[in-house]
């Protein structure tokens, strides 16, 4: 803080009441020290992982069987192609389009008497080639009233759409808006629809959501939209893919763990229950997949395609999620596609080529997704303005729009 001689004495002596960064600094230094010490070990684990990958590649069928029979506590990638495969991107078609969507939301605020939430979907359509064109749109939707605020079953059960359920509802809407736009495209032009994040509805994994909630979000939600993309292939090459920047997943590393495991069939609970270190597979433990592929792939190359074995995937049917990694400059991104894309080399290579091209145009991140984010983003100022508008309109209509005293104390800060 710059202390001016003209500032009153109490300002000079003031101590900020928020985060005291000087207290955290020492802890950050200690963390950096720890990380540095573990770097040599990290390098060794990475070398072992790469060696194991080579070995696994030469005995792929055995590993595939081992994976299928294994009972593990981690998520293990299924092998669709040769594990060590690396492939440069094909040339982009002369004329093609990329559409992308992203979303933001304003969640239900329990401090307001009005129950509502807002979804803001940003949509971008970019057409390349002989008729270049661009189209941006923002689609805000206000959800209010019990019918829209709850997911309901036929027999009268209901679940409020808020928190993580709202996040998933937003994913479905992003996919729906994207499918709407792609379906409205001129026939014949190849297109890839890009979604930010994962095609796997992770929020449904491990949570005890009732089946009507899963049916609403997945079967009648996300999967229905993926059906629309699939159906488009009757008139053009159309693929859908999701893009995960700097992924933390370790599905492939976990497959290597199985390769290293001395037991066959692998059964973690039976042989290694309660152990977190010292197991044969721990020599590659803690590595994310991206670190392996960062060593393996050159710029623009993709890895082999793998199956995701998340438990929710069983419900995906023809849209069973597959993924591959792609290297873009210094980053490894994870691209997820439905099985019907992964099974078609034409669609798969188109996704690969277009994602690489999009990233080249967007300085390392797909330009369509980046612009969709710009369209979708709801800033802190937007939120404040939104609630101000809600309160004003309610007051003008003589409808009570109370806020909690806690919320009021945040709005009017006093001493």
């Amino acid at each position, binding site marked *: 803080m710059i202390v001016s001689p003209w500032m009153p004495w109490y300002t000079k002596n003031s101590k900020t009441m928020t985060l005291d960064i000087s207290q955290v600094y020492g802890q950050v230094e200690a963390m950096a020290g720890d990380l540095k010490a573990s770097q040599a070990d990290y390098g060794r684990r990475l070398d072992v992982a790469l060696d194991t990958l080579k070995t696994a590649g030469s005995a792929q069928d055995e590993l595939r069987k081992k994976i299928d029979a294994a009972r593990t506590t981690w998520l293990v990638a299924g092998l669709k192609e040769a594990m060590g495969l690396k492939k440069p991107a094909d040339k982009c078609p002369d004329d093609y389009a990329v559409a992308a969507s992203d979303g933001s939301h304003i969640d239900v605020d329990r401090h307001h008497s009005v129950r509502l939430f807002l979804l803001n979907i940003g949509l*971008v359509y970019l057409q390349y080639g002989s008729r*270049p064109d661009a189209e941006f749109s923002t689609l805000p939707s206000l959800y209010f009233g019990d019918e829209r605020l709850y997911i309901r079953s036929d027999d009268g059960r209901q679940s409020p759409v808020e928190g993580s359920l709202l996040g998933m509802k937003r994913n479905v809407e992003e996919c729906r808006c994207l499918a709407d736009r792609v379906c409205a495209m001129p026939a014949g032009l190849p297109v890839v629809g890009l979604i930010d994040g994962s095609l796997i509805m992770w929020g449904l994994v491990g949570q005890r959501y009732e089946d009507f909630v899963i049916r609403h979000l997945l079967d009648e939600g996300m999967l229905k939209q993926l059906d629309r993309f699939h159906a488009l292939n009757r008139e053009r090459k159309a693929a859908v893919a999701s893009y995960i920047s700097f992924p933390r997943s370790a599905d492939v590393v976990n497959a290597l763990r199985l390769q290293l495991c001395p037991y066959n069939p692998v059964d973690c609970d039976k042989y290694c229950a309660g152990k977190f270190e010292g197991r044969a597979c721990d020599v590659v433990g803690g590595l994310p997949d991206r670190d392996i592929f960062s060593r393996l792939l050159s710029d623009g190359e993709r890895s082999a395609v793998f199956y995701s074995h998340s438990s929710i995937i069983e419900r995906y049917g023809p849209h069973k999620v597959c993924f591959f990694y792609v290297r873009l400059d210094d980053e490894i991104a994870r691209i997820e596609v439905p099985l019907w894309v992964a099974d078609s080399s034409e669609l798969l290579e188109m996704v690969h080529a277009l994602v690489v091209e999009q990233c080249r145009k967007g300085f390392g991140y797909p330009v369509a997704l980046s612009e969709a984010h*710009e369209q979708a983003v709801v800033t802190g100022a937007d939120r404040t303005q939104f609630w101000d508008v809600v309160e004003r309109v309610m007051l003008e209509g003589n409808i009570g729009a109370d806020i909690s005293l806690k919320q009021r104390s945040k709005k009017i800060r006093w001493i």
Partner: protein
Amino acid sequence: MDLDKQIAEVIETSNSEFLAQCYELDAVPAFGSLVKTRSRDCQIYALVCASGTHSIEQGRRIVARGQGAASPAEVFKAHPQLAKLLCSDFRALVVGHDRGGVIREYLPPSPAGIYAFVYACKPEEVRLFTGSLDFLDLLIDSRLPAATDEVIAAFLRFASLTHEAPQEFLVKAGKGLAWLLSNDIRRLDSLLKRLRI
């Protein structure tokens, strides 16, 4: 340029000037040219005194993209979103208005309307407006984004071409300036030098 077609829209306005956003990228009217728009009660004439192209959103910096490209047009073709993320606009200084068919070379009673359409003036309108040079009085003391004298000289050169005898028009304008700048010979000299077509 189709002179009957609107070229821009007022997005910021005051009694003495307005900012107009063009519909097409880089399609800004010439520096020093005369444009017209409307307030709620009259037609307003204004001089283009600054123009430019920039990011449509503050905080989003434009980066170079043309390395290896044959032309800027190729850059736009390879990145079709750019045309939607950039905009061209211009600032115009109000120099007069037309109310009931009479041109008055002083500020109008109300500013240009927000979102009012802006048109380039046709040559006969420029000729009519510059029939009198009273607007010079308004211009001489203006504080503009570009050097004031550059705007005055650019406008007079532009207007002269709409007259049958451009040189005669410029001599007349020079005399008007000499009267207004009689106490500032250096400025007058510099301005007159800029009047050569």
